[in-house]
């Protein structure tokens, strides 16, 4: 079933997809253990998105424990907060842009989060992104 990104339905489908990938589970088994591994994704308007939108993902010890839209980012306590335009997040999920390309082109900015964890767990981040691409998605502005 195709879902719209971003939406509650997309978040539910994304959580299922993340928990259905054994390789991701293996790579992420230490993620969030001993530190806050939860993520806040801040989607800036443009490319079809009208207003700033936040997605909160709770990932710990190889399992996505929840993914949801939040209205107020101060409602959640995250270890990592990354920000980018909806257009760039869209291209990432469509597979038009790779996570690394987005990084070196300074499209995604790390607002918060321990860079050491990102440095050491880059493969986990890459596979996390790739796993989200299996969700059948309709994108705004397309």
């Amino acid at each position, binding site marked *: 079933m195709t879902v719209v990104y971003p939406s509650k339905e997309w978040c539910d489908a994304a959580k299922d997809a993340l928990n259905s990938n054994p390789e991701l589970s293996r790579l992420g088994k230490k993620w969030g253990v001993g530190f806050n591994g939860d993520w806040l994704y801040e989607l800036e308007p443009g490319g079809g998105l009208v207003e700033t939108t936040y997605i909160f993902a709770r990932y710990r010890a190889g399992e996505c424990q929840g993914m949801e839209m939040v209205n107020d980012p101060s409602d959640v306590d995250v270890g990592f907060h990354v920000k980018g335009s909806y257009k760039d997040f869209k291209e990432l999920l469509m597979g038009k842009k790779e996570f*690394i*390309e987005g*990084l*070196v*082109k*300074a499209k995604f*900015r*790390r607002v918060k989060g*321990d*860079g*050491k964890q*990102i*440095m*050491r*767990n*880059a*493969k986990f*981040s*890459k596979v996390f992104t790739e796993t989200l691409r299996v969700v059948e998605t309709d994108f705004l502005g397309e």
Partner: protein
Amino acid sequence: MFGFMGKILRVDLSARLVTEEIVDEKAARMFLGGTGLATKYLFDELAKGVDPLGPDNKLIFMSGPLTGTISPSSGRFSAVTKSPLTGLWGSSNSGGRWGLDLKKSGYDGIIIEGVSVSPVYLIIEDDKVEIRDAKSVWGLGVKETIQQIAAETSKKLNVACIGVAGEKLVRYAAIMNDLHRTLGRCGFGAVMGSKNLKAIAIGGSHKIELAHTEAFKKAARAANELINESLLKMTLEVYGTNMVLEMVNVKGGLPTRNWQSGSCDYAEDISGPAVSEKILVGKKACFSCPIACGRISEIKTGKYASKGEGPEYESVGAFGPMCDVKDLDAIMYAHLLCNEYGLDTVSTGSTIAFSMECFEKGILTNEDTEGLDLNFGDADVMIELIHKIGKREGIGNLLAEGTRRVSEKLGQGSEHFAMHVKGLELPAYDCRATKMTGLAFATANRGGDHITAYVQGPTFLDIPYLIVDESTIEDPTMENPAEAIVVKDMEDALTVFDAVGCCKFMGMALFAEDLTPIIANATGWDFDVSDFRKGGERIFNLARMFNIREGVTRRDDTLPSRLLEEPLPDGPAEGLVVDLDPLLDAYYDVRGWDISTGLPTKQKLEDLGLGDIMEQAGEI
């Protein structure tokens, strides 16, 4: 000794005398090898005030205990001398395989002394040394030199050599090894040329003995695995060092038109991804490196048709925005031309950019330039100037002296935009956009240098260095004296890499706890994180004392006045300058140095086991 070959080769070119000496184990333990051990020799053997291009200067090549082992990215070697560009401690470090081949030849290091009456090259193979007449190769570029020596020796030796620039004593001439790798900065090529030494061809069959082989292998493999999983691997392997260009530009720190601006609108046309799309034909790894950040690029047609390794970020920065050249083909060609002449791309690009601004302001005119219009953005003129510098022809003879000397000669306010520190031209990171980078430039022992403390990682790239306890810079646009400790810690930690023979990039993804077992098991030393940190600090202070002996004071730990007084006019860092003094005060304090003079205190030197240095340093 384990990790070491145990021998240093000493070649006196004046007397044509070749001797061997045993490596002092105590010195090796204290100074770790590579840059550290070489600096100890240089400090002990060079008197104050030696002419860098005279017979009394020494050129010291040195490998480290990890060089040539399977420790990740551990094929590197260092060289140390008194720099003809700065008149101070000169240090450079190179990759490729020459460091491994140095050890295979039977030696940890080579000390070159004196001056040969006529051009020569050295053949060093399995403990045998020959000094050969270099008539057949003197005057040749780097590639032809390597080919000719291969033909004359009929052997597969690895050649480190100078090009025409080194023969002509261009003050920022480089020594090239493995064709495209370089001891780039500080003018090593000119020192080698001043000794009439064209090349060192090296090879052999010696093996490196390790103290605890199985434990070493286990630690090295674990480190390799960590590197393979890291962000470092994913970014550098895909895009090479030029991956940083857009990240620097977006922060307003990409020096453009000789630092008149901090950003350009064509960054994505010359960035790492652009290289991948337009000209990349392959990747290259140094010995034992799991990353392969090296690029092989080819321009297939046109006036810039060429192929070779590169371009690296610094070359793109120097020949791109620094000179306001937007043509990636021309930038790559300029980079390869420097490799062929044996020129430091950073100093070359920076000096050309400086000359362009002099022309723009009428300080240089057509009368000075043989009719050439030194306009920013003119790629053909930029290329022409590289030829002239490499051969010391026309205006090139002046520019070959380096930005500081050229500005001193020209005057007319050009000193304000002569972008060097202590005589070494600055690399492509504008520290008005990230202030702690400015502190790092001001305090690096070899001059305006970005990799003594690669604080650009946490400032421009938002990438930490795991090798230090803390590398966070809260707001790069602010001067925060409390963060001076980050610069100090990174300087000390990265100095260890130059000493042991490992690539500094590994420090982004490895904790000190990952690297110390590798060093300990290679050498048999009792070596932990505390030894790691103290060893780096010791070497850094020794190099500082060399400079102090040559007359460096706090006055020299500064930045060009453009960076201190002229706000960036546009871009994300618009309006910013560097307020250096509070940062310097804090830095000297965490260093344990006298705040008014920048001199290491007697207590600090004694704590580092350098208590005898004050007396050896003589009148200070």
